[in-house]
């Protein structure tokens, strides 16, 4: 009995040891990465190759995953992406989170951090303007082409990002208020922590409809329609280098990459309007 017990513990210890050395299975959407060869710390092994952590608003999930992969390929530095609502990420930075670059969905949050000297002033830059879309689950059997359709009793849950700390949620609330619908639809509203969680509720069909960012709307499970931009404050997205970053140079390099020749086409492809450009978009209509 004792022997068997110690054997079990031994197996567990071995498992722990193996897991630590094995290749990281974390190469998914949120951490695009080729784990550095060998088990040593890549930053120490090769000073030319460093790792930066980018705190990015949830609407950037798809676009930044692509851009980070391209950046890693071309520059050899590793980029770890952490997605969340802009407000939550800003709060984490105030509490000393080890991020190098902050890509917000609303410039106001960057300005708030700037007032506390938590981001570098000269690094603040606009990189995109976002749009919100009205989305519906394909399987839900509801027709949603304008905001009034949300009143349809067949729609029992409407997923939106939390307006308290997610800029896309704030814009959603403004749009529903401008349309005079906020009070009427409020009982049906469920909050996602951020854009991607709201999207996930619609993707699974647990919410028949909702409002999310255009940049994440191109998923097979949903149909979407653009919401008139005049109904809400512009979603001007800005980024900045975090003051405590040990690699401000590489963070800056990545920031320029996003706003540069390689990053801009990717951002455009995900429906962002770029600084200095006028929107040309084909609103997707619901079949």
């Amino acid at each position, binding site marked *: *009995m004792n022997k068997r*017990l110690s054997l*079990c513990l031994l197996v*567990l210890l071995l*498992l*722990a040891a193996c*897991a*630590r050395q*094995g*290749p*990281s*299975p*974390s190469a*998914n*959407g*949120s*951490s695009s*990465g080729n*784990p*550095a060869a060998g088990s040593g*710390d*890549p*930053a120490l092994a090769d000073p030319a190759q460093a*790792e930066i*952590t980018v705190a990015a608003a949830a609407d950037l*999930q798809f676009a930044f995953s692509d851009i980070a992969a391209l950046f890693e390929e071309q520059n050899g530095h590793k980029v*770890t*992406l*952490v*997605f*969340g609502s802009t407000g939550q990420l800003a709060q*984490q930075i*105030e*509490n*000393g*989170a*080890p991020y190098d670059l902050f890509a917000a969905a609303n410039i106001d949050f960057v300005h708030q951090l700037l007032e506390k000297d938590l981001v570098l002033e000269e690094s603040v830059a606009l990189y995109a303007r976002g749009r919100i879309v009205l989305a519906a689950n394909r399987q839900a059997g509801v027709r949603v082409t304008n905001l009034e359709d949300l009143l349809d009793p067949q729609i029992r849950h409407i997923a939106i990002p939390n307006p308290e700390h997610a800029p896309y949620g704030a814009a959603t609330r403004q749009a529903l208020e401008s349309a005079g619908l906020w009070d009427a639809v409020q009982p049906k509203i469920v909050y996602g*922590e*951020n854009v*991607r*969680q709201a*999207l*996930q509720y619609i*993707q*699974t069909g647990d919410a028949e409809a909702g409002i999310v960012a255009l940049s994440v709307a191109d*998923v097979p499970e949903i149909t979407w329609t653009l919401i008139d931009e005049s109904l809400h404050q512009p979603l001007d997205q800005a980024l900045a280098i975090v003051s405590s970053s040990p690699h401000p140079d590489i963070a800056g390099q990545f920031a320029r990459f996003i706003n540069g020749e390689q990053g801009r086409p990717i951002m455009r492809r995900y429906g962002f309007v770029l600084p200095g450009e006028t929107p040309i978009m084909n609103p997707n209509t619901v079949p």
Partner: protein
Amino acid sequence: MVNGWSPLALSLWVSSLAGLAALVLGVALAWLLVRRNFRGKSFLEGLTLLSLVLPPTVLGYYLLVLLGQRGLGPFIEGFLGIRFVFAWPGAVVAASITALPLVLQTVRVSFAEISKEIEDAARVDGCSEWQLFWRVMLPIAWRGILAGGLLGFLRALGEFGATLMVAGNIPGRTQTLSMAIYDAVQANNLARANGLALLLTGMAFGMLFLVLRLNRRIVGI
């Protein structure tokens, strides 16, 4: 250290340390609560059980306030060179606090089952309190202590809420298995969520089985 580790490796690392911390503290407290009477005993007892009933968000918030940049964070970092908030040591602290009540209760039962006569006999034979603990109590109660440690490890493995608030969800640094599952569900990456959830369930079930076997030996069934 731990930079770039997979969620599985981070989970095992954090839970092992947290389980160990909870075990050391749990054994000491169990000893105190079983064998000693002192002023404020009920207060201490309540305090040790608090993390069992408090919402993880409250615990996480306290830790964030206490260990964060606006709390003792900069002081601790200057003194010990360790940063807790948004780093793995924060996850260890959160997990060990939530694991403590489970460890304590399990160890306490196995201490309480040792009859007072055995203890007194040892004292009569000239055992110091220290020797009593190492030579008598520990050898008798080891199964309960081991079961407590394993339960603590398991509870730490399952810790989510407080850890999310204190340590965050940073891949390769603080993203444990439970964080990675949360992340995968949010990103609608269900294949990954399924795989990780099954892995975690399998590990937890296997170890629970072990704990049950140990417990059975204590009760003598």
